[in-house]
C-alpha cells in the first residue's frame, strides 16, 4: 500500500513538473499563436479590401456577437467607406471551402482570398494554384471586377472558367460567393448604383 502511494506520488510530481513546463511554454507561445491567427485574418481582409486602410476594417456583428461582415474604410477615421468584406463558405468535393471576399460599395468584387480548403491536391486544390510566372492564383483572379450576375461557372453558362476536372470545387466557390453577395445586399439594404454605366 505504501508502495502505491509512493509511486502515485512520484507520478503526480512528474506530471505536475510537466504541466508546469508546458504552462511556461504555452505562456510564451500563446501570444505568438494568437498573433498568427490575427495576421492570417488581417492578410485575408487586406487581400479582400486592397484599398482599405489596414487599421480601418471593422467587423459588423449581430446581436449574438457573430460577425456578419466587415466594413473597410480608406482612412483610419472610418469615414470613407471603400467596401465590404464577408466570408463565403461552400461545400466542395471533400471539404468546406472558405473564401474571404471583398466588394466595393456598388457590389463589384475587388479582392478575394481562399482561407481554407481541403480539396484533392492537384485537382480541386488548383483553385489556389499560382501558375508559373504569375503572382496571383489565376482561378481567384478572374473574380475581380465581377458582379452578382457574372457569378456562374462556365458549365452553368457563366464566365468563370472552372478548374479542369474540378467543376465541383469551382462551383462551390462561385456559388458560395454569389449567395454571400446576395445576403450582404439584403443586410446592407442594397448596393449603390455604379457611378457610370460601362459603355455597351
Amino acid at each position, binding site marked *: 500500500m505504501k508502495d502505491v502511494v509512493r509511486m502515485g506520488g512520484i507520478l503526480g510530481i512528474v506530471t505536475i513538473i510537466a504541466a508546469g513546463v508546458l504552462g511556461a511554454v504555452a505562456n510564451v507561445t500563446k501570444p505568438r499563436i494568437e498573433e498568427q491567427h490575427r495576421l492570417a485574418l488581417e492578410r485575408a481582409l487586406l487581400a479582400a479590401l486592397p484599398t482599405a486602410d489596414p487599421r480601418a476594417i471593422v467587423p459588423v456583428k449581430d446581436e449574438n456577437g457573430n460577425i456578419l461582415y466587415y466594413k473597410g474604410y480608406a482612412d483610419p477615421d472610418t469615414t470613407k467607406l471603400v467596401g465590404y468584406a464577408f466570408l463565403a463558405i461552400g461545400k466542395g*468535393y471533400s471539404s468546406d471551402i472558405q473564401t474571404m471576399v471583398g466588394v466595393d460599395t456598388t457590389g463589384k468584387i475587388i479582392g478575394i482570398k481562399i482561407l481554407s480548403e481541403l480539396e484533392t491536391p492537384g*485537382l480541386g486544390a488548383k483553385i489556389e494554384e499560382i501558375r508559373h510566372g504569375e503572382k496571383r492564383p489565376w482561378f481567384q483572379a478572374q473574380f475581380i471586377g465581377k458582379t452578382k450576375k457574372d457569378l456562374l461557372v462556365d458549365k*452553368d453558362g457563366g464566365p468563370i472558367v472552372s478548374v*479542369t*476536372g474540378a467543376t*465541383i470545387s469551382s462551383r462551390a466557390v462561385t456559388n458560395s460567393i454569389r449567395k454571400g453577395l446576395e445576403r450582404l445586399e439584403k443586410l446592407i439594404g442594397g448596393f449603390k448604383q455604379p457611378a457610370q454605366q460601362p459603355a455597351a
Partner: protein
Amino acid sequence: MEQRMWKVSASPHLNDKESISKIMWLVAASLAPAGIGAVYFFGAHAAWVIFWAVVAAVGTEAAIQKLMGKPVTVSDGSAFVTGLLLAYNMPAESPFWLPIIGSIFAIGLGKQIFGGLGYNPMNPALLGRAFLLASWPTHMTIFKTAPHGGTISGIDVETGATPLNLLKLSQDVLRQVKINPAEVPAQKVAEATEHISKLYDAYGNLFWGKVGGCLGETSVFLLLLGAAFLLYKRYIDLRIPVSYIGTVALLTWMFGGTDGLFTGNPLFHVLAGGLILGAFFMATDMVTSPITPKGQWAFGIGCGVITVVIRLIGGYPEGVSYSILLMNLTVPLLDRWAKPTIFGGAAKK
C-alpha cells in the same frame, strides 16, 4: 506383349474439353462485337486505344514472368482479356500513353504481384481503370467524341457527355428547385426537364450504342450478343448478372426519381453507363468473384446496391467499376459464408 511406357497418373483419366486458354480466348471473341462497334461509333482512335491496352497488358505479363524466371503464359489469353476490358473502360479519345500505363498497372500491381492468374484478389482491368481515374481524372471523365450518328436525341450540351452524367446534372437542378426554388433560373429548370424527358426517350440509342461513354460500354446490343454466347457456352452464369442488374433496376426505380419513391426510371439506368459490360463481363470474372452459387447471388446484390448508391448520391455519375472492386474485397468472406452443405452434413448422425 511388347515393352512400352505406360503413362501413370491419378484418376480420373478423362477430362472435359474445356481449358483455361479456350475459355479466355472465347471471352475475348465474345467481346469482339462491342469492340468493332466502338470503332464504328467513335472512329479509328478507339482501335488505337484497344491496341495499346492489349499490347501493353500482354507485354507486361510476358516481361514480368520472364524477369521472375517463371514460364511465360501469355498464350492463355487472360492478359489479353484484361487489356481488352481496360480499353473498353476508357474514353475513345484517350492519349496513347493512358491505356499503356493503365495496362502496366493492371497486370503488374493488379495481378502478377500476387502470383499471376488465379491469385489476384481484385479485378485487374477495373483496378487499371480506377488507377487511371484517380491519376488523370480529366482524361478519364471528358468524353469529347460524339458517337457516329449523333448524340442522344439532339441534346447538344457538350458533345459526347454520357447519359448518366446528363441525368445527374439535370436531376441536381430539379432537386435544387425543391429545396430553394428562388435560386434556380426558370430557364434552367425547363432545360433540365427537357433533358430528362429526352434521355428517357432515348432507349433506342442506348440499346444500339449511339451515346457517349467509354468506348466499349455503350452498345447494349453488341454486348448482349457476346454475353449470350458466353451463357450458351456456360462460361458465365446468370446468377451474378441477374442479381446485379435486378438490384440496380429495383433500387433506381425506388429511389432514382426526383418526385419521391418509385418515380425512377429503371430501364434507363439498366441500359445507360457500363452496367451491362460490368454485369456480364467484369463482375463475372471468376477469379475475383465468389466461387459458390449462394456467394454469387450475394455478390451481385452487393454490386447493385453500391452502384446505385454511387450513381444517385456519389461523387461520380457511374458506380459500376467501384462497386465491383469493392465487392471483390468481400469475396473471401462471402466464400467462407456460402460454403455448400456437405452431403450428409445436414442429416444427424
